């Protein structure tokens, strides 16, 4: 028996794989990423109470229905199990849903065919028994040639027997496929260059890759394998694939008959009986959509409104901390660096935590109970028009609150390309940080009666633009067919809160560790840009306390000079250097636009008292002509600019983190700024041409 081993945890989605992983590892694990792409990996040691002196590492693979990958996460699971011997795990722990063996056994056969030592966990065996779907485990073990253990992951039943079986289980190649002619011929050809286990796995991937060489797994095939594939005519390859899948399902049917002699049919879905009644309401033509709207409103409210007090508290704590540090150290450059750079930057990271945690709490609960699949079912028709999957809906909606958690939540979209399209669409949704900008401009330059229409127009513009951009990206830059929707609608189940909370904490920590450093660094850089060179006049008065002095500092800073240099570019869209500084400053976070603009106008604490800033903007006059410096048209152009511009370094930091490349954040920033400028130009110059002042 091996004392040190690496076990891969595989299984269909929705079979309780995560619960079992948490039971076996005692919820102590590392979250990482599989190399290259952002597919989350979890790896942990089997806890000593089960391992009993052995050193067993458990790797949780993404949920898969088969080893023929159509998306990046499936490709990772498939590559690890089917890969060449060195990368393969020492054993596979295959989790099957005991209530749905008619489909689950297909993956079991495919895994056993790989010739890896396999232990089968027959999970949810308690529910199966309750529905009269008991399994003769001895027969199943004998027929599959592997150890089979009944488990209940929710309670931990069977965990010990499972761990004891690791290393005890023989490797075995599945039954041959005699009498299936094309398949046999294809296998013989493949086996000239590879093992028969690899050959069997390759048949389906080869057939799928023939039609679509962009399939994620194609890149992982070796040159001799590609050569072997090209030796066989496409129709033959496809016939072989059909024969192989059909033969496996015939074997599944034979197994089912052997292990459940009394079960009348493989086609009924007894565990779906109560779910069908629930679906009678939740996916109902009228009630279903009404409830969907309510659920989405609650999620939206949570991240838009309920997170607010928590975010406020974090900001207060950071302000308190900054004040104390300032008091302790006295005025000086180091103090400014610590308070306005480091502490403010840390605040800029932590302020996202409530929204991220709340969004993932809701998404996690909805996913675990089975509703998220229904949400995708309801919304798929609308999303398919853009060219996306129904699963893109919730991340896009979350974008109205904040792009950062929304982009993180795109991990539910399995196709990398469609995930990228969704990520590119999200920053166009008007997030909550843009609202203060709209509110300030509307309050300063528009009549109260016009406010509602203007604000609604901005949100409508952002929604239409996001969908239009998705439509365009899907057909140009990230061209691809609308992904097929083959979405299991699992039985409704009560979510297990501890699993959801563990996931919430994983995602939050991942953000803080992964994107936090960059946000902190950007804050410090921006602080430096707006603080240097130091003005000489402010020697005697603390810059923090004197708004006029601070305004001068900003004006003379590199950032201020940059904004002044930008003035010729800003003029055609109706803006001046003051707004330019606001734009530069707001890059730290959109809401900073308001406070930076306040500072430029020499007003302190404009966050709390918007009135003086509003009046300052409204009453500002051009010193030469005496005409109002800002007009409705200029205000409108500014708002339109903000609808499109990606004025948010945190969004860019998260995109960098999720895509593991600088290409996408740079593209996002450049393209969105260009669109924003063009649209603002269109509004301002178009408005002037039409005769609006």
């Amino acid at each position: 028996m091996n004392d040190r081993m690496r076990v891969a945890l595989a299984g269909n989605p929705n079979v309780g794989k995560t619960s079992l992983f948490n039971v076996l590892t005692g919820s102590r694990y590392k979250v990482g990423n599989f190399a290259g792409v952002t597919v989350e990996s979890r790896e942990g040691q089997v806890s000593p109470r089960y391992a009993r002196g052995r050193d067993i590492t458990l790797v949780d693979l993404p949920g898969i229905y088969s080893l023929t990958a159509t998306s990046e996460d499936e490709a990772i699971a498939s590559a690890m199990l089917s890969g060449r011997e060195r990368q393969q795990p020492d054993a596979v722990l295959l989790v099957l849903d005991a209530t749905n063996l008619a489909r689950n056994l297909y993956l079991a056969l495919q895994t056993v065919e790989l010739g890896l030592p396999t232990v089968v966990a027959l999970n949810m065996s308690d529910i199966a028994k309750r529905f009269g779907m008991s399994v003769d485990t001895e027969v199943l073990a004998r027929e599959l040639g592997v150890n089979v253990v009944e488990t209940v992951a929710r309670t931990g039943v069977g965990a010990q027997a499972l761990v004891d079986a690791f290393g005890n289980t023989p490797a075995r190649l599945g039954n041959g496929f005699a009498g299936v002619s094309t398949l046999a011929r294809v296998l013989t050809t493949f086996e000239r260059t590879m093992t028969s286990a690899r050959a069997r796995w390759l048949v389906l991937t080869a057939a799928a890759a023939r039609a679509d060489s962009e399939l994620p797994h194609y890149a992982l095939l070796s040159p001799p394998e590609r050569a072997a594939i090209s030796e066989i005519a496409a129709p033959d390859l496809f016939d072989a694939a059909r024969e192989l899948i059909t033969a496996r399902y015939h074997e599944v049917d034979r197994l089912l008959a052997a292990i459940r002699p009394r079960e009348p049919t493989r086609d009924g879905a007894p565990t779906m009986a109560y779910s069908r009644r629930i679906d009678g309401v939740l996916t109902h033509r009228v009630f279903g959509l009404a409830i969907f709207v309510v659920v989405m409103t609650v999620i939206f409210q949570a991240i838009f409104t309920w997170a607010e007090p928590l975010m406020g508290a974090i900001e207060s704590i950071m302000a308190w901390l900054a004040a104390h540090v300032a008091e302790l150290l006295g005025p000086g450059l180091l103090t400014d660096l610590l308070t306005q750079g480091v502490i403010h930057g840390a605040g800029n990271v932590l302020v996202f935590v409530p929204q991220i945690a709340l969004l993932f709490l809701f998404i996690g609960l909805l996913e675990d109970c089975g509703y998220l699949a229904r949400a995708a079912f309801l919304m798929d028709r609308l999303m398919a028009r853009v060219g996306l999957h129904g699963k893109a809906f919730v991340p896009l909606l979350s974008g109205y609150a904040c792009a950062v958690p929304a982009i993180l939540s795109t991990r539910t979209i399995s196709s990398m390309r469609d995930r990228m399209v969704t990520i590119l669409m999200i920053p166009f949704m008007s997030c909550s940080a843009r609202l203060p900008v709209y509110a300030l401009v509307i309050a300063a330059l528009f009549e109260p009666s016009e406010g509602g229409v203007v604000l609604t127009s901005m949100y409508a513009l952002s929604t239409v633009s996001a969908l239009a951009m998705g439509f365009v990206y899907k057909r140009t830059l990230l061209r691809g067919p609308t992904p097929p929707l083959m979405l299991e609608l699992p039985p409704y189940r009560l979510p297990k809160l501890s699993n959801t909370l563990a996931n919430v904490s994983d995602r939050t920590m991942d953000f803080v560790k992964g994107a936090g450093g960059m946000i902190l660094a950007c804050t410090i850089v921006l602080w430096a840009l707006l603080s240097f060179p130091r003005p000489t006049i402010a020697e005697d008065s603390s810059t923090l306390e004197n708004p006029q002095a601070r305004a001068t500092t900003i004006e003379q800073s590199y950032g201020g000079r940059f904004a002044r240099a930008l003035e010729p570019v800003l003029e055609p869209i109706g803006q001046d250097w003051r707004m330019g500084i606001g734009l530069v400053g707001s890059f730290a976070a959109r809401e900073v636009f308001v406070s930076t603009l306040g500072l430029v106008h020499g007003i302190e604490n404009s966050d709390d008292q918007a009135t003086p800033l509003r009046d300052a903007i409204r009453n500002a006059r051009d010193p030469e002509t005496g005409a109002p410096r800002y007009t409705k048209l200029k205000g409108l152009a500014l708002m339109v600019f903000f609808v499109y511009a990606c004025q948010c370094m945190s969004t860019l930091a998260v995109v960098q983190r999720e895509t593991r490349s600088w290409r996408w954040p740079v593209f996002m920033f450049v393209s969105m700024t260009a669109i924003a400028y063009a649209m603002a130009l269109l509004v301002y110059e178009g408005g002037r041409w039409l005769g609006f002042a």
Partner: protein
Amino acid sequence: MKVPTEMSMAELDVGQPGEVTRVAGEDAITIRLLEMGFVPGTRVRLVKRAPFGDPLEFQVRGYHISIRAAEAARVEISLSK
């Protein structure tokens, strides 16, 4: 008397069962449909159409799956009895 009729799974009425005879096409979607259990001889039933008409919800091999009509049209069925 009823003769077994050839039609696609997307044309079923809600609640109506059928038996898979073939999955048309030669690409990854066909492979995926087959691997999800739509192999010849398997019984399927249309459970529901989504509120906007698409996608469709089918019962197959003891579970429920949602598939768009465009993809479901590849699954040819016969109406037994």
